[in-house]
């Protein structure tokens, strides 16, 4: 692997295997996969958006909104006779809401030309407001245990949530590396003017990527709500920061034009393993903040050390 993050993943993996009795255990690996799937799904979308040279800070709120829909719609009177099938329209609607939120962000970025950071910072507040309007600030819960049982299902040795995450990872990886849309994602982020000159419709293109991340955030919200059998209005706070961190650790450039899904997967796993390992080692809560923060900076520093090419030896 040319990406240093995988070296780091290996390192923490070995470290925790030695330090904790409970870490190197196949059920724990299942846990790690399920735990990373939430942030991981959003990170897939964030990789596209960031390669595009944009960013999306509203994902946490979108996740909460989708989770609220997924849980609430099940109890709508019109689906009362559907039995377990009432879950289907609920999930579809939730995913649709995610797409819609992404589309709104993308459309505003496209039409107003306001920086995505700003547009989605606004949306982060606004969509959270929508969540509170919709939920009336209390939690929703699913009457139907079939909903929360879904998250306990397994496909072979893997929990179904992990399978969904891995399948999505594969799809987004293929889209990014093999399709015209994926290649254009690099083009738009690498040199937007060149992309415009080449006739790529940059606006709609970026909007599609915002819709993809909206969809993935919503999917993540749905899966999270299956684990809870409920949706809470504060769900997903701060997730945007952890997602961005994971993506950057995975080697995607904040300025766009560079990055890949393999790296993002590494970044997500790195954070997931650290979190899980520190839980198992019972690191006191106060120190977890310091350790996570320091490791973030340290990885950035090492990455810079290993990949210092940009300035070509010039002292800038």
């Amino acid at each position: 692997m040319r990406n240093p993050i995988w070296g780091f993943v290996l390192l923490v993996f070995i470290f925790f295997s030695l330090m904790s009795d409970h870490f190197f255990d196949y059920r724990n690996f299942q846990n790690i996969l399920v735990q990373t799937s939430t942030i991981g799904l959003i990170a897939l979308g964030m990789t596209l958006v960031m390669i595009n040279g944009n960013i999306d800070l509203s994902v946490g709120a979108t996740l909460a909104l989708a989770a609220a829909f997924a849980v609430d719609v099940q109890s709508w009177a019109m689906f009362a006779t559907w039995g377990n099938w009432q879950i289907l329209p609920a999930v579809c609607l939730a995913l649709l809401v995610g797409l819609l939120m992404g589309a709104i962000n993308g459309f505003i970025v496209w039409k107003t030309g306001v920086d995505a950071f700003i547009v989605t910072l606004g949306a982060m507040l606004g969509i959270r407001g929508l969540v509170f309007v919709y939920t009336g600030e209390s939690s929703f819960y699913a009457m139907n245990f079939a909903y929360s049982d879904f998250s306990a299902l397994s496909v072979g040795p893997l929990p179904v949530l992990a399978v969904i995450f891995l399948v999505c990872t594969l799809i987004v990886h293929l889209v990014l590396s093999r399709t015209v849309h994926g290649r254009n994602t690099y083009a738009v982020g690498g040199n937007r003017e060149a992309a415009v000159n080449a006739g790529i419709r940059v606006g709609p293109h970026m909007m599609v990527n915002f819709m993809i991340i909206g969809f993935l955030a919503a999917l993540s919200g749905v899966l999270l709500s299956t684990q809870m059998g409920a949706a809470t209005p504060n769900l997903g706070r701060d997730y945007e920061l952890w997602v961005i961190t994971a993506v950057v650790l995975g080697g995607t450039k904040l300025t766009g034009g560079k990055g890949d899904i393999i790296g993002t997967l590494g970044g997500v796993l790195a954070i997931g393993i650290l979190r899980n390992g520190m839980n198992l080692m019972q690191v006191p809560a106060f120190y977890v903040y310091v350790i996570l923060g320091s490791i973030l900076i340290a990885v950035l520093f090492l990455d810079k050390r290993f990949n210092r090419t940009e300035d070509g030896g010039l002292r800038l």
Partner: protein
Amino acid sequence: MNEKLEPALRLKGIVKTFPGVRALDGVDFEVMPGEVHALLGENGAGKSTLMKVLAGMYQPDEGQIIIAGQPVRMTTPIEAKAQGVVLIHQELSLVPEMSAAENIYLGELPLKSFGRVDWTTLYERSNAILERLNCNFRGEVTVVNLSIANQQMVEIARALTVDARVVVFDEPTASLTDAEKVVLFEIINDLKARGVGIVYISHRMDEIFTLSDRITVLRDGSYRGTLTTADTNEDEVTRLMIGRSLDLSRDTATPTLGETVLEVRNLTCAPLYRDISFSVRAGEVVGFYGLVGAGRTEIAETLFGLRSADSGEILIDGEKVQIGSPPDAIALGISLVPENRKEQGLVLSMNCRDNMTLPQVQNLASGPFVSSSAENEIFDKYREKLEIKTPSWRQTVRVLSGGNQQKIVIGKWLSMQPRVLIVDEPTRGIDVGSKSEIHALLRALAAQGYAVIVISSEMPEVLRVSDRIVAMYNGRIMREFTADLVTEDSLVQAISGIKATEVA
């Protein structure tokens, strides 16, 4: 020209205004199929703007575009391309992290099912084009790893992806080597033979006269006339362009040389350059000539404190000095006009004046504040001296034409009153009028006692301005010539790596 033939493309009465600037003022222009039509004008005359109108990047305020007899409206570059109009940009328009092939077919990558890229077709086609262009690299390489010249070739390769009616080359040779130029000219002749109309923009008269069939001249955004190349000469074109003739002769007055100001001994920075020794005296212009990639820029960067050498010494006024940073260099009286004006020379978001006074802003303070009047004084002085065209000092440099931007950078370093002035490719993209002014200026500066180093890839330029010429090849100094002993042949041999002894 054949009067019965329908022009491949016609522009009628094009007007385009920008805030505060009337960039195009009723310009007429036409290209016949199979014709190379050169477009000339000073920096900021509106050439690039006219071509951007043509390529659908700007909408004209007034006027008509007529293609094959039909008036058309093109609102995007892609529409223009569909009409067979291809523009090769003055500024590189490539995506650095993508492969050359993807860049060539950017925006129209060949498709398979499910929106997948058809890589086989993509590489086949682009490699065929690159072969036609005699490029020594393949479509698979990432653009960021290519030299500027090769990147330019990728840009040019785009013109060959469609069945073009008109291809516009906006200063394509600014960063090409002579060998690459030859290939480019072959391509142009090939296109021409196939009935494609070519618009060719360049500030290099020799190219214009070897390539073009007709010449249209713009001045200050307005149309000045069209000449048939065969029936005209450089002088006539120049007069049309700048309203006067140019004195192209070398100033022959023997300079009065002072003490040695700068001396470099055995400077090495592997693998960029090795064992570099030379000296420059007050009142002298030393030209560094070589191919792109010969390592001249790196020497300049070392002298300016931007790069550290592995070994060797630098002496100023006979004293050994350590230059660890640009401020050190500036304190020693060294100035560097860098080769890439947009990345290294200018803060594009700043206005003209602030850019010019940037290196000395600390010294222009009155009390804790920057003295605005002192700044304006400097700016006005050099704006006049270099004839910089800008509506006011408040204009952000981003919107100035390339040539005027370059003049701001030169003004910036002249205003530092340096003892050693290093200029790297000072006239890249600069019109003939300003070019000869800059040359005269460099001579005048030397006459005032400055030690001047000029790095250039243009032989006429080094020959005109230098008292001595240092020829470099592949990181080494091959030979030194004095102005009266140099010949074009020996210079060409030296920079191609043929040793002096072999010649003699």
